[in-house]
Protein backbone atom coordinates (compact mmCIF):
# COMPACT_ATOMS: atom_id res chain seq x y z
CA UNK A 1 0.00 0.00 0.00
CA UNK A 2 1.38 3.41 -0.94
CA UNK A 3 1.07 6.14 1.68
CA UNK A 4 -0.10 9.46 0.30
CA UNK A 5 2.12 12.30 1.52
CA UNK A 6 1.42 16.02 1.29
CA UNK A 7 4.10 18.57 0.35
CA UNK A 8 5.07 19.27 3.96
CA UNK A 9 5.43 15.59 4.82
CA UNK A 10 7.55 15.04 1.70
CA UNK A 11 9.75 17.98 2.66
CA UNK A 12 10.22 16.58 6.19
CA UNK A 13 11.14 13.21 4.73
CA UNK A 14 13.59 14.85 2.35
CA UNK A 15 15.45 16.47 5.26
CA UNK A 16 14.38 20.05 4.53
CA UNK A 17 13.46 20.59 8.20
CA UNK A 18 16.61 18.89 9.48
CA UNK A 19 17.80 15.37 10.15
CA UNK A 20 15.79 14.95 13.38
CA UNK A 21 12.47 15.77 11.73
CA UNK A 22 13.37 13.51 8.81
CA UNK A 23 14.07 10.66 11.27
CA UNK A 24 10.69 11.19 12.97
CA UNK A 25 8.86 11.31 9.63
CA UNK A 26 10.63 8.20 8.40
CA UNK A 27 9.67 6.26 11.54
CA UNK A 28 6.09 7.46 11.16
CA UNK A 29 6.07 6.31 7.57
CA UNK A 30 7.41 2.84 8.45
CA UNK A 31 4.86 2.59 11.21
CA UNK A 32 1.99 3.76 8.97
CA UNK A 33 3.02 1.18 6.42
CA UNK A 34 3.00 -1.63 9.02
CA UNK A 35 -0.43 -0.78 10.37
CA UNK A 36 -1.93 -0.05 6.96
CA UNK A 37 -2.65 3.69 7.22
CA UNK A 38 -3.09 5.45 3.86
CA UNK A 39 -2.16 8.99 4.88
CA UNK A 40 -1.59 11.26 7.89
CA UNK A 41 -3.84 13.68 9.79
CA UNK A 42 -2.63 17.00 11.25
CA UNK A 43 -2.76 17.02 15.05
CA UNK A 44 -3.46 19.87 17.50
CA UNK A 45 -1.37 18.55 20.35
CA UNK A 46 0.57 15.63 21.76
CA UNK A 47 1.25 13.96 25.11
CA UNK A 48 4.59 12.21 25.23
CA UNK A 49 5.25 9.21 27.44
CA UNK A 50 8.99 8.89 26.96
CA UNK A 51 10.32 10.45 30.17
CA UNK A 52 10.22 7.33 32.30
CA UNK A 53 13.69 5.79 32.29
CA UNK A 54 13.69 2.15 31.19
CA UNK A 55 17.34 2.05 30.14
CA UNK A 56 19.70 3.54 27.56
CA UNK A 57 17.40 2.99 24.57
CA UNK A 58 15.04 5.84 25.47
CA UNK A 59 17.90 8.25 26.02
CA UNK A 60 19.68 7.18 22.82
CA UNK A 61 16.50 7.89 20.88
CA UNK A 62 15.92 11.39 22.25
CA UNK A 63 19.58 12.33 21.92
CA UNK A 64 19.57 11.22 18.28
CA UNK A 65 16.60 13.53 17.67
CA UNK A 66 18.43 16.35 19.47
CA UNK A 67 21.54 15.85 17.36
CA UNK A 68 19.26 16.22 14.35
CA UNK A 69 17.98 19.58 15.73
CA UNK A 70 14.39 18.33 16.10
CA UNK A 71 11.75 20.42 17.93
CA UNK A 72 8.11 19.63 18.61
CA UNK A 73 5.70 21.43 16.26
CA UNK A 74 2.50 21.26 18.36
CA UNK A 75 1.85 21.93 22.08
CA UNK A 76 3.24 18.81 23.76
CA UNK A 77 2.80 17.84 27.39
CA UNK A 78 5.09 15.33 29.10
CA UNK A 79 4.13 12.24 31.06
CA UNK A 80 5.76 11.26 34.36
CA UNK A 81 9.49 10.67 34.63
CA UNK A 82 11.43 8.51 37.11
CA UNK A 83 12.33 11.36 39.48
CA UNK A 84 10.47 13.95 41.54
CA UNK A 85 12.45 16.97 40.36
CA UNK A 86 10.69 19.27 42.86
CA UNK A 87 11.25 17.01 45.91
CA UNK A 88 14.44 15.09 44.99
CA UNK A 89 15.04 14.35 48.68
CA UNK A 90 12.28 11.71 48.65
CA UNK A 91 14.05 9.62 45.98
CA UNK A 92 15.61 6.46 47.40
CA UNK A 93 18.25 6.05 44.72
CA UNK A 94 22.03 6.49 44.65
CA UNK A 95 23.01 9.89 43.21
CA UNK A 96 24.69 8.10 40.29
CA UNK A 97 21.46 6.34 39.40
CA UNK A 98 19.62 9.65 39.15
CA UNK A 99 21.66 11.24 36.40
CA UNK A 100 20.38 9.37 33.32
CA UNK A 101 16.68 9.46 34.29
CA UNK A 102 17.06 13.19 34.96
CA UNK A 103 18.86 13.70 31.66
CA UNK A 104 15.96 11.94 29.88
CA UNK A 105 13.41 14.35 31.37
CA UNK A 106 15.56 17.40 30.56
CA UNK A 107 16.21 16.20 27.00
CA UNK A 108 12.46 16.11 26.36
CA UNK A 109 12.15 19.69 27.62
CA UNK A 110 14.99 20.69 25.31
CA UNK A 111 12.95 19.36 22.36
CA UNK A 112 10.33 21.99 23.24
CA UNK A 113 7.95 19.85 25.31
CA UNK A 114 6.11 21.38 28.29
CA UNK A 115 7.44 20.32 31.72
CA UNK A 116 4.05 19.04 32.92
CA UNK A 117 5.37 15.59 33.97
CA UNK A 118 1.89 14.24 34.62
CA UNK A 119 -0.07 11.17 33.57
CA UNK A 120 -3.24 13.30 33.73
CA UNK A 121 -2.67 15.87 30.94
CA UNK A 122 -6.45 16.21 30.75
CA UNK A 123 -6.22 18.10 34.08
CA UNK A 124 -3.91 20.73 32.53
CA UNK A 125 -4.42 23.87 30.44
CA UNK A 126 -3.61 21.74 27.42
CA UNK A 127 -6.71 19.57 27.68
CA UNK A 128 -8.07 19.00 24.15
CA UNK A 129 -11.68 19.61 23.10
CA UNK A 130 -14.30 17.30 21.64
CA UNK A 131 -13.34 16.15 18.16
CA UNK A 132 -9.70 17.36 18.31
CA UNK A 133 -7.12 15.11 16.65
CA UNK A 134 -4.21 14.54 19.04
CA UNK A 135 -1.40 11.98 19.52
CA UNK A 136 -1.25 10.82 23.11
CA UNK A 137 0.82 8.25 24.91
CA UNK A 138 0.10 6.90 28.44
CA UNK A 139 -2.65 4.32 28.48
CA UNK A 140 -4.92 6.06 31.02
CA UNK A 141 -4.60 9.42 29.24
CA UNK A 142 -5.41 7.86 25.88
CA UNK A 143 -8.60 6.24 27.11
CA UNK A 144 -9.63 9.43 28.94
CA UNK A 145 -9.04 11.66 25.89
CA UNK A 146 -11.06 9.39 23.63
CA UNK A 147 -13.84 8.38 25.99
CA UNK A 148 -14.46 11.23 28.42
CA UNK A 149 -13.48 14.21 26.23
CA UNK A 150 -14.26 12.80 22.79
CA UNK A 151 -10.89 13.89 21.40
CA UNK A 152 -9.28 11.44 18.97
CA UNK A 153 -6.07 9.53 19.51
CA UNK A 154 -4.82 6.05 18.86
CA UNK A 155 -2.88 4.14 21.53
CA UNK A 156 0.60 5.53 20.94
CA UNK A 157 3.62 3.84 22.41
CA UNK A 158 6.78 5.56 23.56
CA UNK A 159 8.78 7.03 20.62
CA UNK A 160 5.81 7.27 18.28
CA UNK A 161 4.04 10.01 20.28
CA UNK A 162 7.25 12.06 20.05
CA UNK A 163 7.52 11.46 16.29
CA UNK A 164 3.94 12.75 15.96
CA UNK A 165 4.75 15.83 18.09
CA UNK A 166 7.83 16.62 15.98
CA UNK A 167 6.01 16.30 12.66
CA UNK A 168 2.58 17.52 13.80
CA UNK A 169 1.14 14.43 12.11
CA UNK A 170 -0.45 11.15 13.12
CA UNK A 171 -1.28 8.17 10.88
CA UNK A 172 -4.91 8.32 9.70
CA UNK A 173 -6.14 5.07 11.17
CA UNK A 174 -7.81 3.46 14.15
CA UNK A 175 -9.49 5.76 16.65
CA UNK A 176 -8.59 8.87 14.64
CA UNK A 177 -11.25 7.80 12.13
CA UNK A 178 -14.96 8.10 12.68
CA UNK A 179 -15.82 4.59 11.54
CA UNK A 180 -13.56 2.94 14.15
CA UNK A 181 -15.10 4.72 17.16
CA UNK A 182 -18.31 2.75 17.00
CA UNK A 183 -19.10 0.46 19.97
CA UNK A 184 -18.40 -3.26 19.46
CA UNK A 185 -18.88 -5.16 22.72
CA UNK A 186 -21.72 -4.58 25.19
CA UNK A 187 -21.26 -4.77 28.96
CA UNK A 188 -24.54 -4.72 30.83
CA UNK A 189 -24.66 -4.11 34.60
CA UNK A 190 -27.28 -6.53 35.92
CA UNK A 191 -28.51 -7.30 39.44
CA UNK A 192 -27.46 -4.02 41.04
CA UNK A 193 -29.90 -2.06 43.23
CA UNK A 194 -32.02 0.54 41.43
CA UNK A 195 -30.41 3.29 43.51
CA UNK A 196 -26.88 2.12 42.71
CA UNK A 197 -24.36 4.37 44.42
CA UNK A 198 -21.58 5.83 42.26
CA UNK A 199 -18.63 4.61 44.33
CA UNK A 200 -15.00 4.77 43.18
CA UNK A 201 -14.73 1.02 43.71
CA UNK A 202 -17.64 0.32 41.36
CA UNK A 203 -15.91 2.27 38.59
CA UNK A 204 -12.56 0.56 39.26
CA UNK A 205 -14.17 -2.89 39.31
CA UNK A 206 -16.13 -2.34 36.11
CA UNK A 207 -12.93 -1.04 34.48
CA UNK A 208 -11.02 -4.19 35.42
CA UNK A 209 -13.74 -6.48 34.05
CA UNK A 210 -14.14 -4.50 30.83
CA UNK A 211 -10.36 -4.37 30.31
CA UNK A 212 -9.95 -8.11 30.75
CA UNK A 213 -12.81 -9.13 28.47
CA UNK A 214 -12.68 -6.54 25.69
CA UNK A 215 -9.30 -7.14 24.08
CA UNK A 216 -8.69 -4.20 21.76
CA UNK A 217 -12.33 -3.74 20.73
CA UNK A 218 -14.49 -0.76 21.75
CA UNK A 219 -16.62 -1.59 24.81
CA UNK A 220 -19.99 -0.03 25.58
CA UNK A 221 -21.10 -0.01 29.21
CA UNK A 222 -24.78 0.13 30.09
CA UNK A 223 -26.20 0.62 33.57
CA UNK A 224 -23.52 2.72 35.28
CA UNK A 225 -24.87 5.35 37.67
CA UNK A 226 -24.09 9.00 36.90
CA UNK A 227 -20.51 9.46 38.10
CA UNK A 228 -19.84 11.89 40.94
CA UNK A 229 -17.18 13.59 38.81
CA UNK A 230 -14.81 12.82 35.96
CA UNK A 231 -12.30 11.31 38.41
CA UNK A 232 -14.50 8.21 38.54
CA UNK A 233 -14.28 7.86 34.75
CA UNK A 234 -10.52 8.33 35.09
CA UNK A 235 -10.53 5.41 37.54
CA UNK A 236 -12.55 3.21 35.19
CA UNK A 237 -10.39 3.97 32.15
CA UNK A 238 -7.08 3.56 34.00
CA UNK A 239 -8.10 0.15 35.35
CA UNK A 240 -9.36 -1.02 31.95
CA UNK A 241 -6.21 0.14 30.16
CA UNK A 242 -3.91 -1.51 32.73
CA UNK A 243 -5.31 -5.00 32.38
CA UNK A 244 -6.36 -4.72 28.74
CA UNK A 245 -5.76 -2.77 25.53
CA UNK A 246 -8.79 -0.48 25.74
CA UNK A 247 -8.31 2.88 24.00
CA UNK A 248 -11.93 4.04 23.99
CA UNK A 249 -15.03 3.10 25.94
CA UNK A 250 -18.57 4.40 25.75
CA UNK A 251 -20.80 4.65 28.85
CA UNK A 252 -24.44 5.09 27.91
CA UNK A 253 -25.83 8.46 28.96
CA UNK A 254 -22.44 9.49 30.39
CA UNK A 255 -19.71 9.80 27.73
CA UNK A 256 -20.11 12.25 24.83
CA UNK A 257 -20.35 9.80 21.93
CA UNK A 258 -22.92 7.59 23.67
CA UNK A 259 -26.12 9.47 24.49
CA UNK A 260 -28.05 6.25 23.72
CA UNK A 261 -27.27 2.58 23.07
CA UNK A 262 -28.11 3.06 19.41
CA UNK A 263 -25.80 6.05 19.12
CA UNK A 264 -22.93 4.14 20.74
CA UNK A 265 -23.32 1.18 18.35
CA UNK A 266 -24.39 3.39 15.42
CA UNK A 267 -27.37 1.14 14.94
CA UNK A 268 -25.21 -2.00 14.59
CA UNK A 269 -25.40 -5.07 16.81
CA UNK A 270 -22.77 -5.83 19.44
CA UNK A 271 -20.35 -8.61 18.43
CA UNK A 272 -20.65 -9.90 22.00
CA UNK A 273 -22.63 -9.12 25.15
CA UNK A 274 -21.27 -9.58 28.67
CA UNK A 275 -23.19 -9.27 31.90
CA UNK A 276 -21.51 -7.65 34.92
CA UNK A 277 -23.02 -8.57 38.30
CA UNK A 278 -22.26 -7.24 41.80
CA UNK A 279 -20.30 -10.41 42.58
CA UNK A 280 -18.18 -9.97 39.41
CA UNK A 281 -17.22 -6.50 40.66
CA UNK A 282 -16.46 -7.81 44.17
CA UNK A 283 -14.29 -10.63 42.75
CA UNK A 284 -12.39 -8.31 40.39
CA UNK A 285 -11.58 -5.94 43.25
CA UNK A 286 -10.68 -8.77 45.64
CA UNK A 287 -8.14 -10.10 43.12
CA UNK A 288 -6.25 -6.78 43.30
CA UNK A 289 -5.23 -7.36 46.92
CA UNK A 290 -2.30 -9.69 47.49
CA UNK A 291 -2.84 -9.77 51.27
CA UNK A 292 -5.88 -10.44 53.51
CA UNK A 293 -7.67 -7.78 55.54
CA UNK A 294 -5.94 -7.20 58.87
CA UNK A 295 -2.45 -7.16 57.32
CA UNK A 296 -0.28 -4.34 58.74
CA UNK A 297 0.33 -1.55 56.24
CA UNK A 298 3.49 0.49 55.74
CA UNK A 299 2.21 3.16 53.31
CA UNK A 300 -0.80 4.59 51.54
CA UNK A 301 -0.26 5.23 47.83
CA UNK A 302 -2.89 7.49 46.31
CA UNK A 303 -3.13 9.41 43.06
CA UNK A 304 -2.64 6.90 40.25
CA UNK A 305 -3.47 8.46 37.83
CA UNK A 306 -2.41 11.81 39.32
CA UNK A 307 -4.72 13.26 41.98
CA UNK A 308 -6.99 16.08 40.81
CA UNK A 309 -7.72 19.12 42.97
CA UNK A 310 -11.12 17.62 43.76
CA UNK A 311 -9.49 14.40 45.00
CA UNK A 312 -7.16 16.45 47.22
CA UNK A 313 -10.24 18.08 48.75
CA UNK A 314 -11.87 14.70 49.44
CA UNK A 315 -8.68 13.31 50.96
CA UNK A 316 -8.01 16.28 53.24
CA UNK A 317 -11.64 16.25 54.37
CA UNK A 318 -11.30 12.55 55.34
CA UNK A 319 -7.96 13.16 57.08
CA UNK A 320 -9.52 15.93 59.17
CA UNK A 321 -12.31 13.58 60.23
CA UNK A 322 -10.25 10.46 60.89
CA UNK A 323 -6.94 12.03 61.98
CA UNK A 324 -4.71 8.97 61.40
CA UNK A 325 -1.88 8.98 63.95
CA UNK A 326 0.04 5.81 63.12
CA UNK A 327 2.93 7.56 61.38
CA UNK A 328 2.13 5.73 58.16
CA UNK A 329 3.29 7.83 55.21
CA UNK A 330 0.50 8.88 52.86
CA UNK A 331 2.03 9.31 49.40
CA UNK A 332 -0.09 11.37 47.01
CA UNK A 333 0.98 11.40 43.36
CA UNK A 334 -0.11 14.58 41.63
CA UNK A 335 1.11 17.10 39.08
CA UNK A 336 3.23 20.14 39.91
CA UNK A 337 0.41 22.40 38.81
CA UNK A 338 -2.24 20.62 40.89
CA UNK A 339 0.02 20.59 43.96
CA UNK A 340 0.49 24.36 43.63
CA UNK A 341 -3.26 24.81 43.31
CA UNK A 342 -3.91 22.59 46.36
CA UNK A 343 -1.35 24.50 48.39
CA UNK A 344 -2.85 27.83 47.31
CA UNK A 345 -6.25 26.89 48.74
CA UNK A 346 -4.79 25.66 52.03
CA UNK A 347 -5.15 21.92 51.50
CA UNK A 348 -1.56 21.29 52.58
CA UNK A 349 -1.61 23.41 55.72
CA UNK A 350 -1.73 20.37 58.03
CA UNK A 351 0.67 18.28 55.98
CA UNK A 352 2.90 17.41 58.96
CA UNK A 353 -0.01 16.22 61.11
CA UNK A 354 -0.59 13.24 58.85
CA UNK A 355 2.79 12.36 57.30
CA UNK A 356 1.38 13.47 53.98
CA UNK A 357 4.06 13.12 51.27
CA UNK A 358 3.18 14.85 47.99
CA UNK A 359 4.94 13.27 45.01
CA UNK A 360 5.11 15.16 41.70
CA UNK A 361 6.63 14.53 38.25
CA UNK A 362 6.54 10.77 38.85
CA UNK A 363 4.52 8.06 40.60
CA UNK A 364 5.24 5.72 43.50
CA UNK A 365 4.74 2.55 41.44
CA UNK A 366 7.31 3.43 38.75
CA UNK A 367 10.33 4.38 40.83
CA UNK A 368 12.05 4.06 44.24
CA UNK A 369 10.25 6.27 46.74
CA UNK A 370 8.59 3.99 49.31
CA UNK A 371 10.62 3.87 52.55
CA UNK A 372 9.23 0.66 54.02
CA UNK A 373 8.00 -2.56 52.53
CA UNK A 374 6.93 -4.63 55.53
CA UNK A 375 3.29 -5.65 55.48
CA UNK A 376 1.54 -4.09 52.51
CA UNK A 377 1.10 -0.78 50.75
CA UNK A 378 -2.56 0.20 50.47
CA UNK A 379 -3.99 2.01 47.47
CA UNK A 380 -7.31 3.19 46.07
CA UNK A 381 -6.04 2.72 42.52
CA UNK A 382 -6.71 -0.35 40.39
CA UNK A 383 -3.78 0.66 38.21
CA UNK A 384 -1.33 1.00 41.11
CA UNK A 385 -2.47 -2.33 42.56
CA UNK A 386 -2.01 -4.00 39.17
CA UNK A 387 1.54 -2.76 38.49
CA UNK A 388 3.21 -2.25 41.89
CA UNK A 389 3.88 -5.89 42.88
CA UNK A 390 5.79 -6.52 39.61
CA UNK A 391 7.47 -3.10 39.43
CA UNK A 392 8.58 -2.37 42.97
CA UNK A 393 8.02 -5.74 44.63
CA UNK A 394 5.56 -4.82 47.37
CA UNK A 395 2.44 -6.54 48.65
CA UNK A 396 -0.76 -4.60 47.95
CA UNK A 397 -4.14 -4.05 49.57
CA UNK A 398 -6.80 -2.33 47.48
CA UNK A 399 -9.60 -0.30 49.01
CA UNK A 400 -11.78 2.77 48.57
CA UNK A 401 -10.26 6.09 49.68
CA UNK A 402 -12.30 5.87 52.91
CA UNK A 403 -10.88 2.38 53.57
CA UNK A 404 -7.36 3.62 52.91
CA UNK A 405 -7.61 6.48 55.40
CA UNK A 406 -9.27 4.26 58.03
CA UNK A 407 -6.50 1.68 57.55
CA UNK A 408 -3.84 4.36 57.99
CA UNK A 409 -5.48 5.19 61.31
CA UNK A 410 -5.73 1.53 62.36
CA UNK A 411 -2.27 0.56 61.13
CA UNK A 412 -3.65 -2.45 59.26
CA UNK A 413 -6.13 -3.13 56.47
CA UNK A 414 -9.71 -2.38 57.55
CA UNK A 415 -12.90 -1.70 55.60
CA UNK A 416 -15.38 0.96 56.64
Amino acid at each position, binding site marked *: *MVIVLDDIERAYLGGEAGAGTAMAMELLQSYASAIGAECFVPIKGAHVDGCLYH*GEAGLDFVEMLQQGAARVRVPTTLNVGSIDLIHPEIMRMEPDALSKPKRLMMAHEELGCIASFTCAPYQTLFRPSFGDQVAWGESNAIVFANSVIGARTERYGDFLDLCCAITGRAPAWGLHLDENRCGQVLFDLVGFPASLEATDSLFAGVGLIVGLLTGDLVPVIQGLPTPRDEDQLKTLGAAAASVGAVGLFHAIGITPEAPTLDAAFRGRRPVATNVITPSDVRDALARLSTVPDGTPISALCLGTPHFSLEEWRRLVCLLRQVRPAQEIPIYVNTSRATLDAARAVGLLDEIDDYRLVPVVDTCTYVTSILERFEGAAMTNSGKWAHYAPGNIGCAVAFGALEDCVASAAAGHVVRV
Partner: protein
Amino acid sequence: MEREGRAYAAGSAQGPALVLRMPLSFYGGVAAETGEIIDRSHPDLGRNIAGKMLLIPGGKGSSSSSSVLAELIRLGTGPVGIVLARPDPIMVIGCLVARLLYGRAVPIMVCPIDGIADGCMVRIDCDGPRATGSGPDAAMLWRGS
Protein backbone atom coordinates in the same frame (compact mmCIF):
# COMPACT_ATOMS: atom_id res chain seq x y z
CA MET B 1 3.78 -26.36 8.28
CA GLU B 2 3.58 -22.99 6.63
CA ARG B 3 1.43 -20.04 7.51
CA GLU B 4 0.91 -16.73 5.90
CA GLY B 5 0.39 -13.56 7.85
CA ARG B 6 0.98 -9.87 7.84
CA ALA B 7 4.43 -8.27 8.12
CA TYR B 8 4.31 -5.90 11.02
CA ALA B 9 8.01 -5.23 11.52
CA ALA B 10 10.64 -6.20 8.95
CA GLY B 11 13.38 -8.80 9.25
CA SER B 12 13.67 -12.54 9.45
CA ALA B 13 14.36 -14.68 12.49
CA GLN B 14 14.33 -18.20 13.81
CA GLY B 15 14.06 -19.47 17.35
CA PRO B 16 12.38 -21.90 19.74
CA ALA B 17 8.74 -20.99 20.31
CA LEU B 18 7.61 -19.58 23.63
CA VAL B 19 3.80 -19.62 23.50
CA LEU B 20 2.16 -17.27 26.00
CA ARG B 21 -1.37 -17.99 27.15
CA MET B 22 -2.38 -14.36 27.66
CA PRO B 23 -1.54 -10.94 26.18
CA LEU B 24 1.65 -9.35 27.52
CA SER B 25 2.66 -5.81 28.48
CA PHE B 26 6.45 -5.52 28.27
CA TYR B 27 6.24 -2.61 30.69
CA GLY B 28 5.54 -4.07 34.11
CA GLY B 29 5.51 -7.49 32.50
CA VAL B 30 9.13 -8.27 31.62
CA ALA B 31 12.39 -7.42 33.44
CA ALA B 32 14.64 -5.76 30.85
CA GLU B 33 17.87 -6.96 32.53
CA THR B 34 16.93 -10.62 32.31
CA GLY B 35 13.99 -11.10 29.96
CA GLU B 36 11.99 -12.78 32.71
CA ILE B 37 8.20 -12.37 32.85
CA ILE B 38 7.38 -10.54 36.11
CA ASP B 39 3.65 -9.74 35.71
CA ARG B 40 2.13 -11.42 38.75
CA SER B 41 -1.25 -11.78 37.01
CA HIS B 42 0.26 -13.50 33.95
CA PRO B 43 -0.04 -17.31 33.73
CA ASP B 44 3.51 -17.49 32.30
CA LEU B 45 5.04 -15.62 35.25
CA GLY B 46 8.71 -16.59 35.72
CA ARG B 47 9.38 -17.80 32.16
CA ASN B 48 12.10 -16.13 30.09
CA ILE B 49 11.63 -14.58 26.65
CA ALA B 50 15.33 -14.04 25.82
CA GLY B 51 16.29 -15.61 22.50
CA LYS B 52 12.82 -17.04 21.99
CA MET B 53 10.32 -16.74 19.16
CA LEU B 54 7.58 -15.16 21.20
CA LEU B 55 4.03 -16.20 20.28
CA ILE B 56 1.44 -13.99 22.01
CA PRO B 57 -2.33 -13.59 21.69
CA GLY B 58 -1.81 -9.78 21.74
CA GLY B 59 -0.49 -6.80 23.62
CA LYS B 60 -2.02 -4.96 26.53
CA GLY B 61 -1.47 -2.21 29.01
CA SER B 62 1.13 0.47 29.12
CA SER B 63 2.29 2.63 26.25
CA SER B 64 5.78 2.37 27.82
CA SER B 65 6.01 -1.16 26.43
CA SER B 66 7.74 0.10 23.29
CA SER B 67 10.60 1.55 25.37
CA VAL B 68 10.98 -1.65 27.34
CA LEU B 69 10.95 -3.73 24.16
CA ALA B 70 13.64 -1.50 22.58
CA GLU B 71 15.72 -1.84 25.76
CA LEU B 72 15.30 -5.65 25.76
CA ILE B 73 16.53 -5.72 22.17
CA ARG B 74 19.48 -3.42 23.00
CA LEU B 75 20.53 -5.64 25.91
CA GLY B 76 20.04 -8.88 24.00
CA THR B 77 17.49 -10.09 26.54
CA GLY B 78 14.55 -9.75 24.14
CA PRO B 79 12.86 -12.21 21.79
CA VAL B 80 14.40 -12.96 18.35
CA GLY B 81 11.01 -12.44 16.74
CA ILE B 82 7.35 -11.98 17.70
CA VAL B 83 4.22 -13.61 16.32
CA LEU B 84 1.00 -11.89 17.34
CA ALA B 85 -2.48 -13.34 16.94
CA ARG B 86 -3.92 -9.83 17.31
CA PRO B 87 -1.93 -6.80 16.10
CA ASP B 88 -0.42 -4.55 18.75
CA PRO B 89 0.96 -1.30 17.32
CA ILE B 90 2.85 -0.43 20.53
CA MET B 91 5.23 -3.34 19.87
CA VAL B 92 5.86 -2.22 16.27
CA ILE B 93 7.40 1.10 17.21
CA GLY B 94 9.67 -0.59 19.79
CA CYS B 95 11.09 -2.82 17.05
CA LEU B 96 11.40 0.03 14.51
CA VAL B 97 13.37 2.17 16.96
CA ALA B 98 15.65 -0.67 18.09
CA ARG B 99 16.48 -1.33 14.46
CA LEU B 100 17.18 2.35 13.78
CA LEU B 101 19.36 2.81 16.88
CA TYR B 102 21.16 -0.52 17.08
CA GLY B 103 20.72 -2.14 13.67
CA ARG B 104 19.05 -5.18 15.23
CA ALA B 105 15.93 -6.36 13.41
CA VAL B 106 13.33 -8.19 15.49
CA PRO B 107 10.54 -9.03 13.05
CA ILE B 108 6.87 -9.13 14.00
CA MET B 109 4.31 -11.18 12.13
CA VAL B 110 0.54 -11.17 12.67
CA CYS B 111 -1.21 -14.51 12.15
CA PRO B 112 -3.04 -17.20 14.18
CA ILE B 113 -0.79 -18.82 16.80
CA ASP B 114 -2.84 -21.94 17.53
CA GLY B 115 -1.39 -25.41 17.08
CA ILE B 116 2.21 -24.52 17.94
CA ALA B 117 3.86 -26.12 20.95
CA ASP B 118 6.47 -24.58 23.19
CA GLY B 119 10.02 -25.26 22.08
CA CYS B 120 9.44 -26.10 18.41
CA MET B 121 11.57 -24.09 15.99
CA VAL B 122 9.70 -21.32 14.25
CA ARG B 123 11.09 -19.17 11.45
CA ILE B 124 9.43 -15.99 10.30
CA ASP B 125 10.37 -13.97 7.26
CA CYS B 126 8.97 -10.46 7.22
CA ASP B 127 11.16 -8.78 4.59
CA GLY B 128 8.73 -6.79 2.52
CA PRO B 129 9.75 -3.64 0.62
CA ARG B 130 9.54 -1.39 3.65
CA ALA B 131 9.82 2.05 2.10
CA THR B 132 6.96 1.63 -0.33
CA GLY B 133 4.53 0.63 2.39
CA SER B 134 3.46 -2.64 0.83
CA GLY B 135 4.05 -4.48 4.11
CA PRO B 136 0.48 -5.19 5.16
CA ASP B 137 -0.25 -7.47 2.21
CA ALA B 138 3.15 -9.09 1.86
CA ALA B 139 3.21 -12.88 2.12
CA MET B 140 5.09 -14.37 5.04
CA LEU B 141 6.32 -17.82 5.79
CA TRP B 142 6.12 -19.58 9.07
CA ARG B 143 7.78 -22.92 9.26
CA GLY B 144 7.17 -25.07 12.30
CA SER B 145 8.81 -28.46 12.81
